[in-house]
Structures are given as structure tokens and as C-alpha cells.
């Protein structure tokens, strides 16, 4: 086991062999803002531990879907069930969201920012050490005492990732978290997210507008169009995936065709 898992050990059944991830069933989910229907009776089932990428043109409802799953917004109709039960899971710390912006508290040092994500019941004496271990996991072990303002964009997003992982979530929802990063930092972050996902096996839901990113990371890519699922594609390729391989290129081609067909 890695240092990360031992530090963040929570009373979750992952050790017993049952999946750590949260399974998710979305049933006829609708959301409208005024007259505009953003999601239209959307059905989606995600098994525990799956890495799902949601892509689509801007305004297709992908962020709204994520906000509904994360509990930031209420549906106009339909429901979302976690592990077969409707409504948000009893343990609110089981779902974590990572935003497009790092959203670090500028007046808290990096370590304290990660502590924000720790479960509320963490004893105060352990918080700082756990935050540091989490920072170590994202490669920023020595930056715990810095102000967020001195970090680069990619580093800030890594701190945000450490914060999101601090409660050892069973579902991690990522809302274009790499959208604002430069291409190289992006590839690095993708590798980091994939590695941590492989270790922890939470259910991951990644909203992105980058088809290549979706294919590099996800087990399954869902294409949203006008509030409905337009295309659902399994990506059965082994990991780590080689960028620019012929299989990925073929899948990308198929997705792009669907994307521009609608």
C-alpha cells in the first residue's frame, strides 16, 4: 500500500475487497432554468469505481449534471440514487468536487487549505500531518507552509486535488479541472489523477471539453447533447494509455464525428 492510503485510512470497506467507489443511478433527471431545459430526462448508470468522462459542446448540460450529482443544485425532475438509495448519501464526505478553478482560500497556507477537505471528525492533532501527507501524494510535500498566491496554476490545482482527496471520497466529480492549465502541466496532472484513481478506485466523473483527455483517462466516455446522452462509448484500452496510439485515434475520430453530427 502507498503512504497515501495508510495515512488517509478511513473505515471504508475497500480493504475487505468490496469496491471503494460509490455506484450511481440517474433516473429521468431533468433540470431547467426558466424556459431553458438544460437536462432532459437523462438516464445514466455508473457502476462503482468506474472512470467516466462526460464531454459535449459548451452549454450541453455537462456541468449542470455534475453540480446535480455533487449536490450543489436541485433537479427539476427525476432523481439520483447512490447505492440504490435516492437522495444524497448519508456521508456527505463521500462525494467531493473539484472545480475548474482551484478555489483555494488565499488567506490560509497551503497545508491549511488541504485540511479544509479532511473529514470533520479528524482529531485536531492529526490534521496538519495528514494534510502534509496528502500534499506529498500530489508532489508538493515541501510547500505546506506557503501562501497559495506564490504557487503556479498547476500547483494550485494539485493542492485542490489533495484537498478533494482528503476525505478519501468514494465519488470524485471533476469539473474541467485541467481546463485552465497549459498543455504540459495538463498531461502531468492527467497522469497524477490516473495514478491516484488506480490506487483508490473511487468512482470518477470527469467533465471535460477535451476529447483526447477523456480518452486518455476514462473507462467510458459519454457524449451529452442538448441535455441527453447522444453517445456512450466504452474505452477498453489497457493503462497507461499511450498518447497518439492508433486505437485512441480511431476512438477520437468516432467521438468527434458524433460530436459534430448533432
Amino acid at each position, binding site marked *: 500500500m502507498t503512504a497515501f492510503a495508510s495515512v488517509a485510512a478511513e473505515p471504508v470497506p475497500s480493504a475487505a475487497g468490496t469496491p471503494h467507489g460509490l455506484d450511481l443511478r440517474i433516473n429521468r433527471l431533468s433540470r431547467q432554468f426558466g424556459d431553458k431545459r438544460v437536462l432532459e430526462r437523462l438516464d445514466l448508470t455508473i457502476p462503482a469505481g468506474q472512470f467516466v468522462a462526460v464531454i459535449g459542446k459548451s452549454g450541453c448540460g455537462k456541468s449542470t449534471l455534475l453540480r446535480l450529482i*455533487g*449536490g450543489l443544485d436541485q433537479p427539476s425532475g427525476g432523481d439520483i440514487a447512490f447505492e440504490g438509495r435516492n437522495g444524497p448519501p448519508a456521508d456527505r464526505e463521500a462525494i467531493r468536487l473539484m472545480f475548474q478553478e482551484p*478555489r483555494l*482560500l*488565499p488567506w490560509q497556507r497551503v497545508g491549511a487549505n488541504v485540511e479544509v*477537505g479532511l473529514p*470533520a471528525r479528524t482529531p485536531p492533532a492529526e490534521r496538519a500531518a495528514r494534510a502534509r501527507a496528502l500534499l506529498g501524494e500530489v508532489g508538493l510535500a515541501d510547500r505546506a507552509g506557503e501562501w*497559495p498566491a506564490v504557487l503556479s496554476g498547476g500547483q494550485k490545482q494539485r493542492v485542490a486535488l489533495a484537498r478533494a482527496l482528503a476525505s478519501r471520497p468514494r465519488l470524485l466529480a471533476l469539473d474541467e479541472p485541467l481546463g485552465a492549465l497549459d498543455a504540459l502541466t495538463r498531461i502531468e496532472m492527467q497522469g497524477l489523477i490516473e495514478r491516484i484513481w488506480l490506487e483508490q478506485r473511487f468512482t470518477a466523473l470527469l467533465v471535460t471539453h477535451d476529447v483526447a483527455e477523456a480518452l486518455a483517462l476514462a473507462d467510458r466516455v459519454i457524449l451529452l447533447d442538448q441535455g441527453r446522452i447522444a453517445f456512450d462509448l466504452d474505452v477498453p484500452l489497457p493503462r497507461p494509455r499511450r498518447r497518439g496510439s492508433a486505437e485512441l485515434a480511431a476512438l477520437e475520430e468516432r467521438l468527434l464525428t458524433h460530436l459534430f453530427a448533432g
Partner: protein
Amino acid sequence: MSLVERSAWFRPGRGQARSPSRDPAGGRSGLARLETRLAGWVLPVLLVASWEVLSRWGYIAPNVLPAPSAVALAGWQALKSGELVHHMSVSTARALAGLLVGGVIGLVFGIANGLSSLSHRYTDTTLQMVRNVPHLALIPLVILWFGIDEEAKLFLVALGVFFPIYINTLHGVRTVDPQLIEMGRVYGMTPLTLFRKVILPGALPSIFVGLRFALGIMWLTLIVAETIAASAGLGYMAMQAREFLLVDVVVLAILIYALLGKLADVLTAALEHRCLQWHPAFHTPKS
């Protein structure tokens, strides 16, 4: 002096790599640091010096404006008699008491109206109306209510400092990044934690702006109130001196006001520096 100017001035000295006063951590010479600290005082010192010279040459009549040395002498005498310390402590106590009362009320209303639209709907209009009445216009009324006792000064100072603190706190609370508030909610912060960790620190830079304005208004109000109606304090001392045509004491009182104002500003700046360490504008440059 800006950084650019400073480096332009002192770069040649650094190149000679022998000055023992050079700060090894910052690379800035001791001389440069001294210059930074003293720059603000060059102009006042020059003004006082030319004032002294002009007085001695007889260009300024002593009954219009006594020489700085005469003012200093008057200051020394007042200090020796204990009179000055007495008046200064009375004035300072009034200023701080008024600031505390008015500041706390302003802070509470600012936070309440920033957080709750209900509270804002019901109180903001009233507060804005009251704000537009110059509080010094209330002096006759205040004298009728409280006489010339401490309450009168406390009331006026509190009223004066209330508004800048209220308005800036309100603005600060309302402009806290909504994304951070959303983040706090998603990460399960209780309302109290959210306030303590997100809203209050986010509003703090703005609250400090309010505090600085309030300090200026605090002294202004106090001077006017003490000049009109008081039985102790710096303003009272100045008015007494006027009765006896002691121009030097009048000037002394005015100078002390200036120094106290500067002192208040320095203390706020230090507090700001401590509380806003995280803010890029307050980062102490590293080597």
C-alpha cells in the same frame, strides 16, 4: 520612492561589492533601507527648518506663528507640568472609546447586512439617510442632550467612525468570492466555520480600508468636539491657550494632532501587515 527609482539610485553602490552595510539576505544596502524609512520625514523636517529660519529672521511675527523652538519650549513646559500628558491621555481615551463603540456597531451592522438580505432591506435605507447628515451638525443637539461631558464626545466620535466601517465592512462581506463560499459549502463547512474561515478573512482588506477612514474621522470629530465643548483634552487646551493669546500652545496642540494622526496610521499599517500577510500586496519580498 518607488523600487525602480531606488534601484536606479543604489545600483552603482552595489556593484562595488565592498559596502559592509549591505544586507546579505535582501541584497539591498543598509543605506537604501534607511532612505526608505526616512523618506517620508524629509519634507516635514525641511518645512520646520525653514519655518524656524524665517521666524528668526523676523519674516514671521511671533504673534502670528511662533518659531518651532518656541513651540517646542511650550511643549516642554506643558510636559513638565503634567498638563500635556493629562490632556493627551484624556483625548486619546475619548478617541479610542468612540472608535471602539462606533467601530463595533459598524462592524456588526456591516456583517449582518452583508450576510442577510432581510437585515439589509430593513436597515440600510435608514443608515444611508443618517449617513448623509453631517454628524458634526449634531453638536448643538448633542450638547443639549449630554452637556459637555464625556458622553457627548463619545457619541460624536462613535457616530463619525460608524459609517466608514459600516460601508466598507458591508462591501467587503458582499464581495467575498462566491466561488470560495460555494467551495466551503461543498466541503461541509458549518455556517460559523464558513464565516470564520471564508467570509471574514475575505472581507478583512476592505474592513481595514474602513478603519483607516474611520481613524481620520475620529481625530477630526474629536478636535471639533473638544474645541467647542470640553473641560479637558487637547482641543480644550488649544482653546484655553487662545483665550490667553498663547499662540505657541495653540500651534503645539495642532502639531500633536498631526503626530497622533500619523501614529494611528502607522499602527493600522502594522496591524494590516500582520493580518493580511497572505495578500500578495503585503508579501515581504524574499531574497
